């Protein structure tokens, strides 16, 4: 079945696949994970703030994002971001936004909903005595969060946050629907140009599989180490 398998098409396109495609995918993954964790933590703090309105807004945001398919959200932001840009800058026409910026905004805001649920669980897992003790020492709310609660919540949730980042890494392949050349997009461009769908799609499957496997193995090791210290 591999009789007319053309390995050369993979070799010829390696530099395009990795220097252009994989760089895009990894940059998007890491920036969106960072932004998503920051926003997600803020959303989690809003939900746990005890104030009705911020808690309500954060809850609605999370529920909305979590009930929509990512593909639809990608389309939404692709068309919406130029108008938001126009509104923010006060220009007379919708702002042109590049493919990378548009997908970065999409993934950051979408994943923030998922990261916020993880951070919320992390914050709630800290025993009540800790913030109480911090308050007794005279720390303000923001100091309590900054120095006592969040560092521990983050540390406990690190494996889950990283697992979600692996999911995010796989999900970035969906920018394919906007014909953006991420790793899969680049592979599919070559595949269609050279008529080599089988080779290119099998190869990208192997690459995604290898990276995700290694990453989740690393997370499992980390989890064992964290569990041991406790």
């Amino acid at each position, binding site marked *: 079945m591999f009789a007319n398998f053309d390995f050369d098409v993979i070799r010829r396109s390696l530099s395009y696949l990795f220097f252009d495609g994989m760089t895009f995918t990894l940059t998007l993954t890491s920036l969106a994970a960072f932004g998503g964790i920051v926003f997600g933590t803020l959303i989690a703090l809003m939900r746990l703030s005890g104030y009705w309105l911020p808690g309500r807004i954060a809850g609605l945001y999370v529920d909305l994002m979590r009930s929509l398919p990512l593909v639809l959200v990608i389309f939404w932001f692709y068309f919406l971001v130029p108008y938001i840009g126009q509104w923010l800058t006060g220009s007379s026409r919708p702002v042109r936004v590049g493919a990378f910026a548009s997908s970065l905004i999409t993934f950051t805001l979408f994943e923030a909903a998922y990261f916020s649920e993880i951070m919320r669980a992390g914050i709630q897992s800290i025993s009540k005595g800790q913030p109480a003790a911090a308050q007794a020492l005279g720390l303000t709310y923001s100091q309590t969060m900054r120095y006592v609660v969040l560092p521990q919540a983050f540390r406990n949730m690190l494996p889950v946050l990283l697992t979600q980042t692996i999911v995010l890494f*796989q999900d970035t392949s969906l920018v394919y629907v906007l014909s953006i050349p991420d790793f899969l997009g680049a592979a599919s461009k070559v595949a269609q140009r050279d008529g080599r769908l089988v080779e290119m799609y099998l190869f990208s499957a192997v690459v995604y599989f290898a990276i995700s496997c290694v990453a989740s193995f690393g997370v499992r090791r980390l989890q064992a180490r964290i569990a041991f210290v406790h």
Partner: protein
Amino acid sequence: MNYHWNWRVFWEPAPNGTGTYLDMLLSGLVLTIETAIRAWVIALIFGAVIGVMRTLPSRTASSIGFAYVEFFRNMPLLVQLFLWFFVLPEILPNSWGLWLKQIPNSPFYTATIGIGLFMSARVAEQTRAGINSLPRGQQLAATALGLTTAQTYRYVLLPMTLRIMLPPLTSEFLSTIKNTSVAITIGLIELTAEARAMQEFSFQVFEAFTAATILYLVVNIVVVIAMRFVERGLAIPGYITGK
């Protein structure tokens, strides 16, 4: 904003001749639900079998289960759909590949099977977690009573597990519905694709996406409410989820 809103666009006839734009979106919704339910059946059957295999005492069975789950979990769904749709017909023997390519409606079948198998790995993990969450005493007691492994699963472990698993299964079913939209890439004209088509025909981007968003929300709410009734009916008395 210089965007021209026109909410009446839904009642205008769509250029593809199937009725109004609203009809177009609704037919997409039907296809989304149809794909999701069929994929869910596949996911439940394969997921339950693989999940049970991972908890069996046999080394071979649990390694096969482990390999299965890792295989389907470590590749993006989109890549898996491409493998089923573009790659599989090419690497099969010629006559089979030809037969596969000539099946009418092949995006629908590919999406159903691809999404079903992708979700089955996650159902398997939930099944395994459910079985492992039972107190060890249950299995030991069943063994002490002289039940075989098959009987232990059939009469003791699975009836408990399936009921404990309902809440996580609900959210996996919601994921299945959302994941059907990935099949837009292999040409399945489900709800997101219909919204996109409507945007291209009518230029009313935000109306089309708003309508799709509302339809997805309604489906979610209906599933959550329906499952809450099922969960209440099947809850195990004395367990956290039971009353």
